[in-house]
């Protein structure tokens, strides 16, 4: 079993801030070759999904039980955001190989207090409304 803990109580980080925490594992099979601790972002929504591994730290030949601390600098972009069509999410992901047992902890990286929420607006074709021939402008 793998667990991820962050040093900070909140999961919100600003770009450049240090994302520090630790990974603890117990009962790993003896066949485990390595554990990867990754900082990733991915998208969810209506269309096809996207994923990027931004930083990858490996722990080679881990014991059945152990702990490892990690530190990543929060990248400047892309920012965490959510709209109706697409959400971009950041996460710390830990995977053991070759079994691929994995654990994930979602975080948000934005200059704001929490993820940016894109609010839908009514499309009133503003470009053409400029040329509207009416006195109600």
């Amino acid at each position, binding site marked *: 079993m793998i667990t991820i803990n962050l040093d900070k109580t909140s999961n919100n980080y600003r770009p450049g801030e240090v994302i520090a925490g630790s990974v603890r594992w117990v009962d790993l099979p003896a066949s485990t070759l390595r554990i990867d601790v990754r900082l990733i972002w991915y998208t*969810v*929504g209506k269309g096809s999904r996207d994923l990027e591994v931004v930083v990858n730290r490996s722990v080679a030949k881990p014991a059945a039980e152990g702990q490892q601390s990690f530190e990543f600098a929060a990248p400047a972009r892309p920012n965490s955001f959510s709209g*109706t069509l697409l959400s971009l999410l950041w996460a710390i992901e830990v*995977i053991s190989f070759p079994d691929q*047992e994995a654990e994930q902890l979602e975080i948000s990286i934005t200059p704001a207090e929490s993820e940016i929420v894109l*609010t*839908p607006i009514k499309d009133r074709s503003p470009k053409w409304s400029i040329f509207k021939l009416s006195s109600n402008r």
Partner: protein
Amino acid sequence: MNFVTARHNPFATDRLDTVPFRFSLGDWEENLQRLAKLNYRAAIVGQRGSGKSTLLRELVKQLPKVGQPVSYLNLPLEKTAHGKLLAAGLASAFRGAVLLVDGMERLSLVNRFRIMRETKYLPGLVATQHRTGRLPTWIHCQTSVTLLREILQDLQLSQPEIIAAGEQAFLRARGNLRDTLRELYDLYARGEFSSVTDRSSSGCHRYPRGESSNV
């Protein structure tokens, strides 16, 4: 405005990908046996949005379990890259993999002829296509309102208003399940289902854990 963000939309692609393919006859074991009898040389036939690609993606996971390595080829609509993709797919097949081709009809006649000829003495070729052709049909994918209801049930969305909207969308899409679910995504995003109160029930682990290992 009562809109729902993508991460909380139960019709998002990552949620739909968790819904298993349903065979109209038999289970995975029986259908894999039937595929083996066809020498792994067969077609998945069906109209647009009937689940052909879903079945092929599940086959990517199932065949290695019975000791058949696979090479998966997803052909884009844009034909310019087909030659290179085909060469890479065939190279894998020559190393002993069954070639799985999504979108066989997107290939030009010349490339279709090439793939049929060059895979003739290889471990296998399973391709999705809209109509029956030279490959024997392994599975004929068909959609129905009952299937739509089962999918909604899998997604834990059995509220009458969602089912009713789904059935109307299904008729408009002429049986195309992909388009039906996309329309339901839009309706859900606009907050048009009043009976759904807990819009954040989907949790935060949205990406299949460990999938980054494939990157």
